[in-house]
């Protein structure tokens, strides 16, 4: 039986975080949440995730800063950024740094789920690396 896709959702808005977890769990994904970049790095130190879904602007440590560290710690982890600041310069920076996508808020869940299915498909055809 294939392992469930593991997703870490990082957002300082607790309600949004919980809602995203609930939606993704309906799709049978295994979801953990963190409320800021710093907490997410502590979690990532303990275990690796297939996907990190992260808010671009957070207190303490913002999304791009965290993403760059995640990329070093877990190069095989895909990262999708989420933002309420549409057209922000950070969006470009995130994409240039290698984020899979930057999604606006309110989130288009159909788009998110399609992106996740693409990531799964890519992992299953990837013969060299990944989990």
């Amino acid at each position, binding site marked *: 039986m294939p392992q469930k896709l593991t997703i870490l959702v990082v957002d300082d808005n607790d309600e949004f975080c919980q809602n995203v977890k609930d939606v993704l769990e309906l799709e049978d994904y295994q979801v953990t949440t963190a409320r800021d970049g710093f907490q997410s790095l502590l979690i990532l130190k303990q275990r690796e995730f297939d996907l990190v879904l992260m808010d671009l602007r957070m207190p303490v440590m913002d999304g791009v800063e965290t993403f760059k560290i995640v990329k070093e710690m877990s190069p095989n982890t895909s990262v999708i950024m989420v933002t309420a600041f549409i057209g922000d310069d950070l969006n470009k920076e995130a994409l240039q740094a290698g984020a899979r996508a930057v999604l606006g*808020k309110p989130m288009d869940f159909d788009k998110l789920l399609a992106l996740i299915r693409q990531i799964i498909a890519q992992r299953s055809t990837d013969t060299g690396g990944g989990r």
Partner: protein
Amino acid sequence: MTGEGKTREQLIDEVQVLLLRVAELERSEAEHQRIEKELQQVARFPELALVPDTAEVKKAEERRLTVERLATLGQFSGDISHELRNPLSVIASSAYYLKTRLKDSDEKVREHLDRIQSSVDKATGVIQSLLDLTQMKKSQLTRLDLVAFISEAITMAAVPVRVKVVRNFPQSAVLVNADREQLGMVFRNIIANAVEAMAGRGTLTVAIGTKDGQAEASFTDTGPGILAENMDKIFQPFFSTKSKGIGFGLPIARLVVERHGGIIEVMSAPGRGATFTIHLPLGADKVDGV
């Protein structure tokens, strides 16, 4: 010789130019006639025209205040957008969860959830329009041929078959320096407004030309026209006579055109359709900042 060392003829010429400029900004035929009479008066007594027209001064002051208010709003609109998008995200994600979870429940439940989602979409649209109006991105100027550009805009507008489009275009290119995305938005708005005004049936006449060193593009519809009391309001944010829409299209269009050094004017009378004319400086040989 009058004050400042100018001759009487020079003074007459200057005042005539100023009054002609005022005439261009006026919107009704009656005003054109009034200005013409004044011109004749000025030619006889130029000193009388030096008294400032208080109505024009008041309009200019109102426009200046509007620009200032928009600039202030622009400083905060990014934060306002963020603060509104976050709770909207929670509402939308809860609606999505419930819709997925309750997909086998009765139609009424799904209907309510759809309404929640569509209202979130509308609210998000309002926020984006506010951002478009108040935080316009820096223009990326390129040389555009208005003839080709407007032809493309008409094609992309997917004008209904019952709207006849008449094109009065010159044989040669009419070049302007403009931001492709921003100017495209202006023409799309004006064409969409014209089609809506005609309720999907009528004639849209689009004319392109040059006059006095300026490019001109006019869009004339055969709709019901604009009421006289609304002529001053149509470029104000949140003013709309449509059943849908929040009235940002024309304010944004005016902002874009003026940022390009042009003006947008409208002529209309009830029952006689409306003509929106956009004047833009003709393109220079070199474009800065591209």
